[in-house]
């Protein structure tokens, strides 16, 4: 069974006001991995965001520098970066007057494990289905 802690971006992000953000339990006991999966997949579902991620992986890039690559407003690029940040895939930090985007390798590793975790989630559900059915058989017998 995998044990790991989510990237800070994943752990800290507030989920629509639910008190999910302060949990620091290992991921495998969290029931809502699909939420995290969807956040990461949602972040990666957009071609511009994937391109930003690639550029950020190639080295730290200023937000202004990144914005120059896309036919959209600076604000729109900032919004894409914020979504990547929310998924724990990048972090933003200020270096002097520049804001730079850096990939969060921990976030990327988390992304890779999500599918395996999704499988674990369903294996747990199947186990509970089985107990439910066999419980009932004992009762009937």
């Amino acid at each position, binding site marked *: 069974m995998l044990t790991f802690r989510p990237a800070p971006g994943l752990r800290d992000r507030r989920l*629509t006001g*639910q008190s999910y953000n302060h949990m620091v339990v290992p991921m495998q006991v969290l029931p809502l991995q699909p939420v995290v*999966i969807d956040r990461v*997949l949602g972040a990666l579902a957009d071609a511009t965001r994937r391109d930003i991620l690639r550029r950020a992986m190639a080295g730290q890039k200023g937000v202004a520098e990144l914005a120059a690559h896309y036919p959209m407003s600076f604000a729109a690029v900032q919004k894409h970066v914020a979504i990547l940040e929310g998924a724990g895939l990048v972090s933003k930090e200020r270096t002097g007057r520049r804001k730079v985007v850096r990939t969060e390798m921990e976030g990327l590793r988390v992304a890779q494990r999500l599918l395996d975790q999704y499988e674990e989630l369903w294996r747990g559900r*199947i186990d509970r289905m089985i107990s439910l059915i066999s419980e009932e058989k004992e009762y009937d017998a």
Partner: protein
Amino acid sequence: MTVTAVRKDPAALTMTLTAEFDASPERVWQLWADPRQLERWWGPPTYPATVTSHDLAPGGRVEYYMTGPEGDQPRGYWDLVEVDPPKRLAFLDRFANADGSPNDEFPGSEGTVTIEAIGDGRTRMEILSRFPSTEAMEQLVAMGMEQGLTEAVGQIDAILAEDAVATS
């Protein structure tokens, strides 16, 4: 062994899990169709589910929340697409806000459940989960991430090795 197969297909964006039960298709269908049974397996023991509405019909909705150890109550719902008892169920699995309204911030996944008798009173259930974008899944699973990381680490190793040769 109950779970007989798991296939994760990054190109098709799916995970398919197959399980076999020592029960009839009708009995397996009840696990989904009876909200009291559903809430006994949907959430893990630390986050039991409570089903608040359960309209298992095409166009219908199933709403639930789970209760965590700290009292937090994440909510979700299914929008039913196909309901064909006791054989087939297709739904969109989405997230809801604290007030129960749909949370559209993130896409959900699609679930398709197929139930069939396989003889000897046994039943096979296949659960297919599909994620929203091929590119997203490819990006996530197949490429980039680990590979890019491994390459980067490999390059660093190569550079360090060159340095070592140069200074020796």
